């Protein structure tokens, strides 16, 4: 037990200790000292990143009687989650200022969500997975409802309902799988299904498990929550919501599809059809929408569905493309929401509110434009490379998936339309330039926006190192 902790679980434990520290401090410190909360969580994240170096990855390590595991794949995802957490915390400056009294508990909840994400990625049985899912889920409910007003509470409630339902579906699948194999450990299940014939029940179990997990990615049967939640959510929390759960869930879904659920050919088609329906729904929903946050919600759902489709077509090559896509996507998204946060968060941010602000805030709007262009997949940004790389994976998976690819490609044209819809008003001519708002971001927010835009461009020009890294990770799973 102690061995396990020192071999692979130090990052999680350091983060847990910091969470406890924050909770204790929240009882003693006065609200005026809210500033230190952010500092403490940044320290926590960095010490956790530092502790990642102590994690044993070669060979794979199974700890706590096979409940958790670690290899370079989990290490990469933990690192990504922590880095995204760092960027998001930098963005939360305005939010923390408005909730001074609760700043410490807010940061504690945030770190808990990160901890949940890290545990999800390193889970090796369904019980650990469920517990860490709920760990992340519960802190997410509070994070969503943290900003003032009616909308955020409504959003949080909707998220709770959907999550509860999807957890039920997930557990249903797990119970079937337990019934077939007599175990909840991934390795045992994998061993069982490779040695035995599987039946329809197995397929049903697989589909249910994937459906339950994919609800957090806003894939079709549980996709509707995303619009309302994004509408009511604060933009820095959105930067969290659109990256970290996604990274964690994709991390575990890719592993599940390869190992315990890897023997079901029907699952691939179910995933393909579900993600195609999601892409259709999300992209067409966004066409007539005028609220920027809703459009970004649809884009999040659509992008998740592209990666989900690719992850469903199991192969090592596909896995590497999915990892690359997720990294690029997380960077772009954080930068987009950082801009929205700088602009001043409101519940309804309409497309036309941004009219002409480029002329007064060239640098910030330029960085934002780069991120949106990257989301649309236009070259010299990482989005272009990510999209091409992802689509090569689908094209290589066989002729039967060509119609799916064709549909996705046509839908990216629709996506381009709504991305341009939120981007182009920025450059509009304005009659009265004096009335335009001049944004005065804090250093940390500016830092996140510029750094993410710069990473987007650098990956767009020179992707080779990152792609090689992703391939290495994918081959080591």
């Amino acid at each position: 037990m102690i061995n396990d902790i020192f071999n692979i679980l130090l990052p999680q434990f350091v983060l847990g200790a910091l969470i406890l520290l924050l909770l204790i401090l929240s009882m003693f410190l006065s609200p005026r000292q809210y500033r230190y909360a952010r500092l403490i969580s940044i320290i926590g994240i960095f010490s956790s990143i530092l502790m990642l170096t102590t994690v044993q990855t070669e060979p794979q390590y199974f700890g706590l009687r096979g409940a958790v595991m670690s290899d370079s794949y989990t290490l990469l995802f933990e690192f990504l989650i922590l880095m995204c957490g760092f960027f998001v915390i930098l963005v939360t400056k305005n939010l923390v200022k408005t909730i001074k009294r609760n700043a410490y508990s807010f940061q504690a909840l945030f770190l808990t969500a990160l901890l949940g994400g890290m545990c999800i990625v390193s889970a090796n049985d369904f019980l650990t997975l469920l517990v860490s899912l709920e760990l992340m889920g519960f802190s997410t409910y509070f994070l969503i409802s943290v900003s003032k007003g009616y909308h955020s509470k409504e959003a949080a409630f909707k998220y709770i309902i959907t999550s509860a339902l999807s957890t039920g579906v997930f557990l249903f699948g797990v119970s079937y799988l337990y019934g077939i194999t007599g175990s909840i450990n991934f390795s045992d299940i994998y061993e069982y299904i490779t040695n035995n014939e599987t039946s329809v029940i197995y397929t049903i179990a697989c589909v249910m498990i994937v459906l339950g997990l994919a609800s957090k990615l806003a894939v079709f049967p549980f996709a509707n929550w995303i619009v309302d939640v994004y509408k009511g959510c604060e933009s820095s929390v959105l930067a969290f919501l659109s990256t970290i759960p996604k990274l964690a869930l994709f991390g575990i879904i890719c592993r599940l599809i390869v190992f315990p659920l890897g023997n079901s050919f029907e699952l691939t088609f179910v995933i393909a059809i579900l993600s195609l329906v999601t892409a259709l729904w999300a992209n067409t929903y966004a066409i007539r929408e005028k609220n920027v946050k809703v459009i970004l919600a649809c884009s999040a759902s659509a992008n998740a569905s592209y990666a989900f489709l690719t992850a469903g077509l199991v192969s090592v090559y596909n896995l590497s493309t999915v990892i690359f896509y997720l990294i690029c996507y997380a960077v772009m998204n954080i930068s987009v929401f950082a801009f929205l946060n700088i602009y001043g968060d409101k519940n309804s941010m309409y497309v036309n509110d941004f009219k002409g602000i480029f002329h007064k805030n060239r640098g910030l709007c330029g960085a934002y434009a780069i991120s949106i262009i990257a989301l649309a997949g236009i070259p010299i940004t990482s989005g272009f490379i990510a999209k091409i790389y992802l689509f090569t994976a689908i094209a290589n998976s066989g002729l039967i998936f060509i119609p799916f690819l064709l549909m996705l490609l046509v839908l990216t044209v629709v996506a381009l339309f709504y991305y341009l819809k939120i981007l182009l008003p920025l450059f509009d001519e304005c009659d009265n330039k004096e009335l335009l708002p001049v944004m005065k971001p804090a250093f940390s927010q500016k830092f996140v926006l510029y750094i993410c835009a710069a990473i987007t461009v650098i990956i767009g020009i020179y992707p080779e190192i990152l792609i090689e890294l992703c391939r290495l990770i994918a081959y080591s799973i």
Partner: protein
Amino acid sequence: MDILLSIPILIFVPMLVSVLLLSPFFTSNEVLVRRFAKSVFVFHFLYSLCMLLFFSPSNPYICKIDLFGMDWIQSLGIKLLFKIDAISIIMCVLTSFIFMLASISSKFNIRKNHKFYYSMLFLLMSAILGIFTSGDMFLFFLFWELEMIPAYFLIGGKWRTDDNGIYDVDAKKSAMKFILFTFLGSMFMLLGILLLHYYNYAENGILSATFSDISEGTIPKGIQVLIAVFLLMGFGVKLPVIPLHSWLPDAHTNAPTPVSMVLAGILLKTGAYGIFRFNYEMLPYSFRVLAPILAILALINIIYTAFVCYAQTDIKRIVAYSSISNMGLILLGLAANTKTGLSASVFHMVAHGLVTAGLFMICGIVYLRFKDRDINNLSGIATVMPRLFGFASIIVLASIGVPLFAPFIGEILTIIGAMQSELSVVIKFAALFSLPLLILSSCYMLKFLHKSFTGDLKEEYVKVNDISMHEFTVLASILAGLVIFGLYPNAIIGLIG
């Protein structure tokens, strides 16, 4: 010579200049920006001329950029490879030339946001040169997509201070239409590229995306045709082939004059170039299968658009539709699948690029002076602008296909090439039936000339000035090009061989 005349300088200098112009550190003085941009364009043209001078078809320019000793994306075999062969060098020089003329003619048409305008113009030039020189499918696609951003801003931007009246309202809409059409086409093209890349790897065992490594080899015949159709849909939007053409008249009409010159003169040719690079060279089997269909589409392009063109009253729309018609001719030359057809279509690309640039220039001059583009309202321009009338009549005659000028050679050679085609009777028929183009084009073009330039002049326009030095330079250099290639077509045809 390798260092002095290298492809990266040709492509990336415009891109660097574009970034420089976009940066806040560069002066925003209107005159300085304009002169700087103009001199860079002239320098670039001279540079490309030098490259043409030292070019020999047996020894094409090849340049491979290694980033820290690695390919661009090694796991897909994508390399940063540039290659200039005979056709590329012709298109590059043409691009450079038309952009130079466009920058010269920008003086009176662009009155606002000079820095941004020239920056976008340089970026567009860089993207188009990238298309013409890239030696790798994905690199080709990258530049193909990259060209959309500057094209959007150039078409949809508001570049004039005065109120443009009814014409300016739709500029943004048509720019959006342009982008969506092009993006849809390029997505089909991407699908074709992905399939070609994968099947080339699966069947021939070479993980590479460079043009020279890809051959149809043992790829199943059905897949080949499928890939070719996807690719053709992508190029067909740019070319444009008839059912996919509806973005073109709007975009060309609403863009400012220099941008129209560039769009019609160069941008459409990228589609034809793509068909040549991908379908003609790499997928010959499927191209032979699809050639009759392409010939029929080309014929529809030629004849149908000529009739549509005759019904137009907006002078810019007339020129835009006439360019669709001429692009049909270029497509027919490619579909013929003969040596003559190929060289004819490349020749016609150059000739038509020059002619449309000139015609759009004339439209722009007329619109600048008279604030109207309707041929029913215009009349008697010749009485106040005799020099413009001289140029206009010569360029219109050239576009009709009068001997002595380049388009004549292009049209005749195309039809000869198509008649020689041994693929199918359909192509010969198409060639035969495209002959009325010569009559139809004279109908609409002479109508344009007759209605707007002759007759009585309205009183309020008596004091209009004739063409200025800038406009004279542009028109004269276009005319020089037309005459040179009309008298000595071997300059281009000999290069292709």
